[in-house]
């Protein structure tokens, strides 16, 4: 097991390295030289500082290693060139927690509600409940999150005035965003949980459990649930990616001062260094969450935990 963890972490670090490298070189390929052009507008002293820090006169590889050095040794993700003085780290510190709050709440909703709905749909297969759930799932998957968010804003926020349409600061501001964030994920989890349970239901060991005298409730709890859950755990990784992606648009729509909103702002401002810095941060979060999910899966599935060296 330990070997598994080490391998996974090592691989994660390598991947992170690849992502950051890829991003750096892509951004450096941007038309014009943004750093240089911005730098020219500044006073001499500032220009010298910038040149030294970013190694502007140096070839690209040197700049690359300089960036990496800064990143690893000082944890400096980079500075904005559009708004001098602001660093990526500042934004991360201030705004990431907000995104995280919504993201985690949404994830919890997705997992708990999605899995519950999926299990119910599978157990009541073919009946009305199942059909209703399946229809809702299909709709939720096919309606993009921003369309759904717009609908929520329009009807619940605007027409019926139940909760604020946008903004941040009060508990009521959480309602619409979390729903909008969670909907797609709930549908995905429900859909996959349903398939998973249905395939477990037809397994032989379920028949054995019944043959031992288990009542249906116990069969569902003790035998079906855990075995259906296993394949779903691996879905959590991509689900987190979905929440990142969602954050880009939804934070803008709901005017939530989260990291995603500033990321998009940096993109539209062509603030390349900021984009680079925030991308590095996101990459880190993403890779770490994938590692955590894989390790959790390894812990939960005895076949991996104990290793396949049977007998």
């Amino acid at each position: 097991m330990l070997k598994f963890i080490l391998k996974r972490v090592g691989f994660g670090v390598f991947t992170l390295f690849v992502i950051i490298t890829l991003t750096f070189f892509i951004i450096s390929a941007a038309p014009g030289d943004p750093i240089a052009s911005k730098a020219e507008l500044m006073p001499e002293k500032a220009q010298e500082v910038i040149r030294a820090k970013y190694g502007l006169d140096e070839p690209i590889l040197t700049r690359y290693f300089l960036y990496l050095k800064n990143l690893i040794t000082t944890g400096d993700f980079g500075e904005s060139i559009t708004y001098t003085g602001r660093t990526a780290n500042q934004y991360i510190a201030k705004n990431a927690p907000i995104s995280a709050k919504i993201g985690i709440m949404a994830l919890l909703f997705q997992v708990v509600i999605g899995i519950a709905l999926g299990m119910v749909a599978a157990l009541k297969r073919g009946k009305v409940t199942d059909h209703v759930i399946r229809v809702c799932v299909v709709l939720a998957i096919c309606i993009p999150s921003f369309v759904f968010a717009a609908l929520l804003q329009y009807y619940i926020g605007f027409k019926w005035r139940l909760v604020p349409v946008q903004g941040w600061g009060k508990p009521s501001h959480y309602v619409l965003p979390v729903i909008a964030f969670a909907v797609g994920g709930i549908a995905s989890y429900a859909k996959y949980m349903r398939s998973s349970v249905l395939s477990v239901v037809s397994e032989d060991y379920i028949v054995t459990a019944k043959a031992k005298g288990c009542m249906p409730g116990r069969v569902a709890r003790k035998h079906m649930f855990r075995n259906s859950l296993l394949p779903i755990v691996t879905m959590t990784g991509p689900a987190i990616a979905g929440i990142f992606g969602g954050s880009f648009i939804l934070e803008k729509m709901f005017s939530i001062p989260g990291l995603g909103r500033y990321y998009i702002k940096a993109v539209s401002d062509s603030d390349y260094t900021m984009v680079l810095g925030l991308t590095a941060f996101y990459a880190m979060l993403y890779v770490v969450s994938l590692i955590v999910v894989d390790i959790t899966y390894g812990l939960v599935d005895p076949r991996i935990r104990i290793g396949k060296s049977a007998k």
Partner: protein
Amino acid sequence: MSDNQNMPITEDLFERVGIQKNRAEDLSKPALTYWADVWRRFRENKLAFLGLIILVLVIVVLYLGPLINGSDYQFINEIDRNQGPSMKHWFGTDTMGRDLFTRICHGGRVSILIGVMCTGVMFVFGSILGSIAGFKGGVVDDVIMRICEIVNNIPYLVLVIILSMVMGRSLFALVFAMSFLSWTGTTRMVRGQILQIKELDYVQASTALGGGTAHIIFKHLIPNTLGIIMVTITMSVPGFIFGEAFLSYIGLGIEAPATSWGALAAAGQERMMFYPHELFFPCLFMVLTILSFHLIGDGLSDALDPKLRK
């Protein structure tokens, strides 16, 4: 024969007849060829068939609509700004007085085109890579699989954003950006199919009888994989349509004067409170199209599932 049940039992009935070959084998159901059976099951799935109809209708509207309507999607008319649906403008107008219906038709062509092109690139690239991995095996296979793993660990949307930021907003740039990292699923799938087929008895037999690689590909691999390929393609197109819409919302989608459903929706979003129709209609078309692809894909995968064969 049922009336004979009431026949009295007479001596002559005890005459021997022996084995009756024509009735000894169970040929109760007419044997359908594989594809005929798949098509039959697909047709019977009402939802899937509905999806197909919706898709066909949408495409017909997209291409024929403007011809019937006659409006120009770029024609700016300051007087008719932000009007609701009417006889003159079926879906109303946008902030520059342009006919929304026509814009949706043109935008739809772009959206679907992007979806199909990205899927095409993803599929071709993924298949080639997967085939190489599957056929060559060994080190080549390992390397390709490692690359797939790494790519899978990259946050897709983030990279797409960066690529479009740098490459601009042309059709080519968008398709490139979205296809760049999308091929791992296809690669794995094709490779898996090839490995499976290599192991199959009849392929080994075929090889033993002299069938070469090309023969294996065309006679065995493609017919067997076609089903899954169709499902994958059908389920990928809506993802790319959504991707382009996503990019439009953050300002990186297709550039004016071209438009797409995503761009229209994003523009409509700004005025949602006052002129909801500008958001509603593009979204409706987008959702309908995504829904139809989804239903078709689901129906196809059910129709192809051997466990559900009746």
